[in-house]
């Protein structure tokens, strides 16, 4: 895979995907959830996730005219975002009854992770521009403090939510009580569980789509 050939198409694909899914989740979270088969019970979380996704699109639009030195950090962020997205999709699939959209997101995240990994592994020569030396200059110490606060907040909310999701996936009883549960109640023909599966465990209680 040639980094020079994939840079621009990948960048615009990321911008389009981030712009569409980010704005849709931010502007109309309930409609977006309903159209994609989710319950949409926690609109605030949908809006925050939409804001984060849309921000990636904006950051990458700004990066379309940037040099590789300027672009490499947003690309590394995008790699992290999509790798975490694969983890989230895997948890959703493992916990059973994943919506079809989960598989679409899993596929897109895998493509984006592979593409951004390739760019970082073999930086494209095409994205020439200002050299590192021209860009390196000290920043204000108050800004470094702001970055530290941002990293701490991202660690608490991001990693905290990941570990909660992981423990929810391994414990159906806990998943059933989480306020962020996205499973739409009612029959789901694409994920009909068999009798005795974990969804009908005593801790979780019978779900409407479990065989009687």
């Amino acid at each position, binding site marked *: 895979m040639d980094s020079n050939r994939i840079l621009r198409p990948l960048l615009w694909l990321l911008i389009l995907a981030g712009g569409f899914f980010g704005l849709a989740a*931010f502007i109309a979270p309930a409609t977006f959830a309903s159209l994609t088969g989710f319950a949409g019970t926690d*609109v*605030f979380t949908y*809006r*925050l996730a*939409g*804001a*984060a996704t*849309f*921000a*990636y699109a*904006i*950051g990458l639009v*700004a990066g379309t005219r940037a040099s590789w030195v300027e672009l490499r950090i*947003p690309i590394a*962020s995008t790699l992290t975002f999509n790798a975490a997205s694969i983890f989230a999709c895997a948890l959703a699939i493992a916990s059973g009854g994943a919506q079809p959209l989960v598989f679409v997101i899993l596929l897109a995240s895998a493509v984006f992770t592979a593409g951004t990994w390739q760019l970082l592994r073999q930086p494209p020569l095409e994205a020439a521009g200002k050299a590192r030396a021209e860009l390196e*200059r000290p*920043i*204000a110490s*108050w*800004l470094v403090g*702001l970055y530290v*606060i*941002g990293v701490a*907040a991202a660690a608490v909310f991001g990693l905290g939510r990941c570990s909660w999701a992981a423990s929810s996936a391994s414990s159906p009883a806990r998943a059933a009580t989480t306020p962020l549960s996205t499973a739409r109640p009612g029959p789901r023909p694409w994920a009909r569980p068999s009798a005795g599966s974990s969804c009908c465990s005593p801790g979780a209680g019978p779900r409407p789509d479990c065989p009687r």
Partner: protein
Amino acid sequence: MAVTFNGLSVIAAIVQIIGGAQPIAWLILAAAGLTTVGMGLALARKGR
């Protein structure tokens, strides 16, 4: 990127507070508001 995310988070938190706030919405409003102002200032001053 940071200004967009935090600016939109401020809007989302305000919408949430208007519709009946949970304590986390106030926390996010404060954190995102501070970060939006800080990052905006950083962009305007070019990191100085």
